[in-house]
């Protein structure tokens, strides 16, 4: 029962995201046979070192979506303080309302059923532009971002070029 609600809701979100996609975002199920696994492409925000890059990510939804949030993992290289070396994205909107592992997140920023895939992807896009220094998932990237900004930007730009095969 719960999983039919989840698949209906996901299908609805897929439709919305397809008919009026937000700027720089393409997302949908890898195959409609499994609506709980999506792949998204996020464009690097302009005016940041991520500009011009396209970042593929995988979203895995729980069977009780939208009660619980999906997990999101970048499939390519993303050198960013809030992205684990494994690609896993650490951002408040992906944390269930009950758990607040870092004790700094406002309830309104965390996951709730009124949020959506679109909001997650937009939040991740703005996270790329503005890293959150309070909860680094990649310590090395966070340190570099804080202390050697130009090196950080160069690392990111080189990654963008590599990811586009140049």
């Amino acid at each position: 029962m719960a999983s039919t609600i989840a698949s209906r809701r996901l299908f609805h979100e897929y439709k919305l995201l397809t008919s009026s996609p937000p700027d720089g975002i393409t997302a949908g199920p890898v195959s409609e046979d499994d609506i709980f696994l999506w792949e998204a492409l996020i464009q690097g925000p302009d005016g940041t070192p991520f500009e011009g890059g396209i970042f593929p990510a995988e979203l895995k939804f729980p069977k009780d979506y939208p009660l619980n949030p999906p997990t999101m993992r970048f499939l390519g290289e993303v050198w960013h303080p809030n992205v684990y070396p494994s690609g896993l994205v650490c951002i408040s909107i992906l944390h269930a309302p009950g758990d607040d592992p870092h004790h700094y997140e406002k309830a309104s920023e965390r996951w709730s059923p009124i949020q959506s895939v679109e909001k997650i992807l937009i939040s991740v896009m703005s996270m790329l532009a503005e890293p959150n220094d309070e909860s680094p998932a990649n310590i090395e990237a966070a340190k570099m971002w804080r202390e050697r900004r130009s090196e950080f930007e160069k690392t990111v730009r080189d990654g963008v070029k590599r990811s586009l095969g140049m």
Partner: protein
Amino acid sequence: MPDQQQTLSVPSLLLLAAFAAITIRYFFFTKPSTSSLRTNSRAANPADVEQIATMFPQIGRREIIWDLQRNGGSVNATTERILGRGSLDPPPPSFQPIIPPGATPSTANTNPAQLKSKHIDLITRYNLGSKISSPLSTPSEGSGPSGSPGVSQTQAWSSNKNERQALLKRRREEMILNARRKLEEMERGRLQQDG
């Protein structure tokens, strides 16, 4: 009177001593003996240690093994503790587990130089090699999956499952190819400036 007092206090003293012995034994020996039993019988699973070390490269393997052994090998409990407190308890100096020889130093995982070889690029991932050199196309002038020209972005949704899948695939490819073309142009522009 004094005689009677003495006879009374001897058994009560014995009783007290026995009680004290049991209490002391209970408090001081039961806990350590069970926990040491657990520590010995439950060596941390190397795969679990690696998994946590990959997730939290800032945490040393010694701390991870120590924590896993103390909580009975629960990856979840250790992960929760790291997420909640940002660190783990330092193990006592006497705790020297055998760290697998393959284990890399914790920072190596996050080295940007290492990331280079780990990922395949988007052109390879989405199999776009043949399409890179094709002329620039804007989304509106691209052709539909069935070959019909003029499928614009507003018609992105189809009631047919296979068509939807094809449309999504095309949107992905366009996004990547456009990014690649822009980057190529930018590189060309920069080379001209330099030259």
